[in-house]
């Protein structure tokens, strides 16, 4: 699956970040190839969202660098990264509450700079993106009236409408039913097949197992393990990080 991923879409190099005296990220480095899906796992407080914020320009690292599509983007603001082809969703969905679901997605297609689309074409594209996430029948509903899970899908559709090169999904499946997770996984794999690169974090292993080419486990700001999903979720250090050392030791025996 990762055969054509020689060229890095994203490189994260020795990122360090502290808030006051608490170190959140300790020299985190990894790279993500074009068309690859990388899952980021770790317990609460591991530094996943901070890492997302640094990659997408919402926070600056204390040291280290981020290279996106061959250009150093560490100091770029989020809007510049957005124009360069990086889109993301947030743990707490960032929607336009007084717009309909369709208008929300339209913002992604119409405000995009390249290629600039006339309104009818942008509307068509927005409708298509809503169809991809399975919300076309709710297109006229006000975004603020949608349940949280559907707001996440609207945010995803809007991110897709920007035609990103790299998409960051921060706990996109939180609150989804099992069937919805399966539909989402199938959709993400289709997007990957069209060349989209994905970095996602989630507490739902079912989603990560289904879509990720590779998982990267983060604990207390450090990468503790990485590899294919099947082996990584049984990795003793990963199990320890989530469930405690007693379970970790057992997992090591069974791996």
């Amino acid at each position: 699956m990762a055969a054509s991923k020689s060229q890095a879409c994203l490189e994260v190099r020795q990122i360090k970040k502290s808030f006051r005296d608490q170190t959140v990220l300790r020299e985190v480095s990894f790279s993500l190839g074009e068309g690859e899906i990388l899952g980021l796992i770790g317990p609460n407080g591991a530094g996943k969202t901070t890492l997302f914020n640094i990659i997408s320009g919402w926070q600056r690292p204390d040291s280290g660098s981020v290279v996106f599509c061959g250009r150093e983007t560490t100091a770029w603001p989020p809007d510049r990264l957005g124009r360069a082809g990086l889109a993301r969703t947030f743990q707490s969905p960032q929607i336009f509450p007084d717009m309909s679901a369709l208008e929300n997605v339209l913002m992604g297609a119409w405000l995009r700079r390249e290629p600039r689309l006339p309104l009818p074409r942008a509307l068509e594209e927005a409708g298509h993106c809503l169809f991809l996430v399975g919300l076309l029948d709710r297109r006229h509903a006000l975004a603020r009236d949608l349940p949280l899970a559907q707001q996440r899908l609207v945010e995803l559709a809007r991110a897709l409408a920007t035609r990103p090169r790299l998409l960051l999904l921060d706990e996109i499946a939180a609150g989804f039913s099992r069937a919805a997770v399966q539909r989402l996984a199938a959709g993400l794999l289709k997007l990957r097949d069209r060349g989209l690169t994905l970095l996602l974090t989630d507490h739902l292993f079912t989603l990560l197992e289904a879509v990720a080419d590779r998982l990267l486990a983060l604990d207390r700001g450090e990468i503790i393990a990485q590899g294919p999903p099947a082996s990584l979720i049984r990795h003793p250090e990963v199990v320890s990080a989530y469930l405690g050392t007693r379970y970790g030791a057992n997992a090591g025996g069974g791996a």
Partner: protein
Amino acid sequence: MGKFHYSWLLTAAAVLLLAGWPLLFPDAVHFQQVLGLTCLYATLALAWNIYALSGAISLGHAAFFGLGAYASALLNHYCHWSPLLAMPLGALASVAFAVFWNWGFQRLRGVYLGLASLAALEIPKTVVDNWDRLTYGSMGLVGLDRLPVLALGSFEVDFGLNLQAQYYLLLGVMLLAAAVHRQSIRSRWGWTLRAIRENETAAQGLGVATHRERGRALLLSAYLAGVSGGLYAHIMGLVEPALVFNLHLSVLPLVFSLFGGSKMVWGPVLGAFILYPLEQLLLMPLFPMGHSALYGLVIILTIFFFPRGIAAWLPANRKPA
């Protein structure tokens, strides 16, 4: 498409009514004066609202109005420029202040921005008030050239003294500002402003340079407010700091826009055309001392009972623009 025709039909009818009534009542000069000033304040409200479309609530637009008025007055007084030249160029002083404002207040939002804008009004007012050698201080500048006479062959229109002609000029300026305002809502840029207003984080994530776009809205807004100030100076023939930097001039556009509907194309105009004539023609004769209390009452009622403004009741505006 039905909605499209309907709204255009309504607009055309309203414009025809506004353009036609002085021809039917040529002797109603008081009405022409009041409705002329209504057009001027509606222009100011449209200017205020262009900035508000980006989610910013300004309490300092009198600064732009006053700077436009003073710059135009000074150009006329010292350089003897015609008001027709002094007004559009004088408004650039308001734009210059808007550049400073945009830089200084870039991190402020909501109520903090409102308070800072209120404080910012004091800066040009204090400068003008104390720079006696240039501005004549609190005495102000008097004897400014009135709006000029336009002559086309034997046809002459005196915009300075003929109140009917003045009304048409102010109506024309207002319609021009309304066209700019309409574009600021309906265009791609208008949707950019709306995205910023609704969720700045999401807008930024979509690649919108929120500070720059809000700044553009402010510059445009300041320019139109400056032109309104210039018009005011040459209609009155004088400027005084207490007159053109008055907080009332910051509150009027806010009240007109909120009452009319600040997200609607015609909201600020509708608000101005209902409230200002009501205050001037009905309440002022009845309550000479307390007629301005109307605006306080209107704000409270609007916030409680129709926060989207009365333009939202029009069938063509059932949804926010």
